[in-house]
């Protein structure tokens, strides 16, 4: 439907508010509501307010798919913000692509996807561990044990990590995957005990991650001699497991609540004060989600300038979003920008160490922005461009998922 | 002799179906009452009504003057009712011993011991106390059901076709035992029987049931062949 000047722009917020995925995704809904309130207060997008349509995907992929159709076909939203897991993203992408719509996907993921209908603000597998692995090897030793949840993202992340590991001269002494949602880490910890690594690299997610850290300590492992370097264990996780179980471990992420810059301080303070701050903390996933609102704003306005407000379509927004920057004064993690080819985000991963109070101390920040590369470990597949995946044979394939 | 059990205009239901209709009779202490009637007239239902196992009953049932209506089966059992149901109701996962012990839960003194009497009458049970009751043969189960009811130390034994499936010499013996229980120990009996001969031999009085109603009652001598002819043949 053509947009009308003066009428609010509808966008869909597609996250789970109930069920197993509610823990991270409820925060995403909250922070987006906060972001759009903030944007509306400051004049809206292209001069009109944004109206978020909130739906509950109930942690059920069937519902994700159904709600996507409802938002696009019935609510006629201009863009979708949604999903936390790759599985839910894959569940809705056929619809999004078929309708040539636009999805803002706000969290870290494995890449290896080249669609013309998504914009992602989280780190890709190639960005995440680039600094973390060399840092850990240097500080604790060469031997590392990989533990992950048994699904795509950890496996892809580990493939990347292996590249960095090799570069840093490290040695992989074991690699284990735990069924999603499992809370029994006895066998894995047993294997770790035998392998005697210098540190553990973890891509365990969700409730399992909390169980992992708890049992790590309960089984008598010492954080000083064998810390866990994680891509997931952030502020909510450490709070849930209890700071005593999190303290001393490492996390690589583009954002930490304790980041010391004025934009972040303002963000944390205002957010927690607002009616959306009820869960009492900010964390990387939340901040990446927050950024999508501003990426959308910038993209929409650029598109409006190019084709005229009334003619802005999801396609037009996406076509105009390459290279969009979210500046230091808006982005709590500092300047980021959208890659013009693959529409992922250039960002600076940072390494934090969990403290006794559950907050993170930044121990290292990347000097340069890291380029997102969804096909970093599959160079043969080609390169992702704005119009599709360009294979080595020069053929262009669209909608590669 | 005093009135032990009294039915006053009792109507008993399964779901919304009336099975017993306006049932009234009286039974004296120490009496042996035979309940007679064709198949499906409501003899078993009468027993179950006394135990409180039907869905609903109206009217008054009294034991020694105490009103039973409204009381749950487990409360009724403690008034000294020993029930031998049709189909025996043996708990198959219990041993013979446990089955008999089950009877003791309804005892006035709650003593968790098997009364010596139960085993004396049925030597098979005595020898097989630790067998699983589900494995017994039909007749053995019947014996067990009677033993269990005796373990209650009952004032009244409710016997629903107690000799069904029991070998002839033991049928005979059970007849003797019932007589003994009745005459020597003063236990009152309510007995349903298809065999007129047995009823005549054991009973002091009878009630004849047809289609859920009492059609005749009185001392056993009053049970004429004509009555039997009218209400018991097909």
């Amino acid at each position, binding site marked *: 439907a053509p947009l009308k000047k003066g009428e609010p722009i509808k966008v869909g917020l597609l996250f789970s508010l109930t069920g197993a995925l509610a823990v991270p995704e409820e925060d995403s809904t909250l922070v987006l509501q906060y972001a759009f309130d903030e944007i509306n207060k400051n004049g809206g997008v292209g001069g009109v307010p944004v109206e978020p349509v909130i739906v509950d995907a109930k942690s059920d992929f069937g519902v994700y798919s159904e709600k996507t159709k409802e938002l696009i076909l019935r609510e006629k939203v201009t863009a979708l913000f949604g999903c936390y897991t790759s599985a839910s993203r894959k569940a809705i992408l056929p619809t999004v692509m078929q309708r040539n719509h636009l999805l803002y996907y706000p969290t870290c993921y494995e890449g290896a996807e080249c669609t013309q209908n998504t914009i992602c603000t989280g780190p890709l597998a190639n960005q995440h561990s680039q600094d973390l692995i060399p840092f850990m090897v240097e500080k604790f030793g060469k031997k590392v044990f990989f533990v992950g949840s048994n699904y795509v993202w950890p496996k892809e992340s580990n493939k990347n990590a292996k590249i960095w590991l090799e570069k840093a001269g490290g040695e992989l002494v074991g690699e284990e995957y735990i069924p999603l949602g499992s809370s029994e880490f006895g066998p894995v910890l047993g294997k770790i005990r035998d392998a005697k690594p210098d540190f553990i690299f973890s891509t365990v997610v969700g409730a399992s991650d909390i169980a992992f850290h708890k049992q790590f300590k309960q089984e008598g492992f010492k954080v000083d001699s064998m810390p866990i370097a994680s891509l997931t264990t952030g502020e909510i996780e450490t709070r849930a497991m209890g700071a005593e179980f999190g303290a001393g471990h490492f996390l690589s992420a583009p954002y930490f609540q304790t980041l010391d810059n004025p934009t972040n301080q303002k963000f944390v303070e205002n957010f927690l004060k607002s009616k959306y701050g009820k869960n009492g903390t900010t964390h990387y996933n939340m901040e990446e989600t927050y950024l999508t609102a501003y990426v959308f704003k910038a993209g929409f306005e650029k598109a409006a300038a190019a084709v005229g407000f009334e003619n802005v379509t999801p396609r037009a927004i996406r076509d105009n979003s390459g290279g969009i920057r979210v500046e230091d004064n808006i982005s709590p993690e500092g300047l980021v920008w959208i890659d013009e080819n693959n529409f992922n985000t250039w960002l600076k991963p940072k390494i934090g160490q969990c403290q006794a109070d559950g907050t993170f101390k930044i121990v290292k920040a990347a000097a340069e922005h890291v380029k997102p590369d969804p096909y970093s470990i599959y160079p043969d597949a080609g390169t992702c461009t704005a119009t599709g995946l360009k294979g080595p044979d020069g053929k262009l394939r669209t909608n590669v998922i | 002799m005093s009135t032990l059990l009294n039915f006053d205009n009792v109507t008993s239901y399964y779901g919304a179906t009336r099975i017993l209709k306006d049932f009234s009779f009286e039974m004296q202490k120490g009496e042996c009452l035979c309940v007679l009637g064709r198949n499906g007239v409501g003899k078993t239902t009468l027993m179950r009504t006394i135990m409180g196992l039907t869905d609903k009953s109206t009217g008054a049932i009294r034991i020694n003057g105490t009103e039973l209506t409204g009381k749950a089966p487990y409360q009724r059992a403690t008034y000294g009712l020993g029930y031998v149901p049709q189909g025996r109701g043996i708990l198959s996962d219990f041993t013979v011993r446990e089955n008999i012990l089950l009877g003791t839960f309804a005892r006035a003194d709650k003593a968790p011991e098997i009364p010596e009497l139960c085993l004396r009458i049925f030597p098979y049970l005595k020898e097989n106390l630790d067998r699983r009751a589900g494995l017994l*043969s039909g007749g053995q189960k019947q014996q067990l059901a009677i033993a269990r009811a005796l373990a209650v130390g009952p004032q009244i034994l409710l016997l629903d076709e107690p000799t069904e499936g029991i070998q002839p*010499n033991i049928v005979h013996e059970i007849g003797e035992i019932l007589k003994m229980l009745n005459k020597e120990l003063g236990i009152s009996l309510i007995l349903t029987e298809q065999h007129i001969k047995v009823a005549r031999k054991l009973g002091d009085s009878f009630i004849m049931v047809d289609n859920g109603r009492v059609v005749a009652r009185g001392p056993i001598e009053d049970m004429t062949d004509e009555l039997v002819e009218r209400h018991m043949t097909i």
Partner: protein
Amino acid sequence: MPGLLEIHNLSKSFDATKVINDFSMEVVEGTLCCLVGPNGAGKTTTMDLVTGRIKPTSGKVIFAGEDITAKHEHVIARAGIGRKFQVPAVLRDLTVRQNLEVAYSRQTNPFWNLFKFRKAGLKEKLDEIATLGGLSGRLNERAGILSHGETQWLEISMVLMQEPRLLLMDEPIAGMTEGEIEKTARIFKDLRKTATLIVVEHDMGFVREIADVVTVMHMGSLLATGTISEIEADARVRDVYLGEKEAA
């Protein structure tokens, strides 16, 4: 002429106890054989063995010249053996009519039955049997609510619907009135024209009335066999089973 049913040296043990012990018998086609014996003698177990409900430890069962010892229940039933259980077993959630319809098992193949909506000859047979069993008035009643005696009749009717060559009746008259017992006796005697029967009963009056042959079991073995008067005269049978009064 060999018997319709031959049991050869049958034995069955449960754990350590030998319940059937080298038991043999033979039933000639067209006769009515009464199987009697004390409680726990093994009569029901013998029926279980014949109908395939349990498998013997040793021995053979031969029906119409065919060894059926190791066969499944339904195969044996199809071969022509129908059974009434001691504890009446009817399909309690089905109506009386449906019980009889199911029992009318001419076609048992699941696949063919998918395409069968009306069974040939069912109606006449059903009417006939229901009248015989006194169930005509209760055809649409749920079988679970029948009284004990009515349930007995229903199960007997079901066996009759099956039209088996050999009928095994485990205590068919338990809980029946004397009038009904007479009726049952008549029915059984009639049946002898077309089928063979083995009846287990403790009611000696009934046995006397119907039996061509009486076989007595005791502790899993054959104790005696013969006509009713021979049996009643047998001292051992009197001792373990009949008692003095009954024989008198």
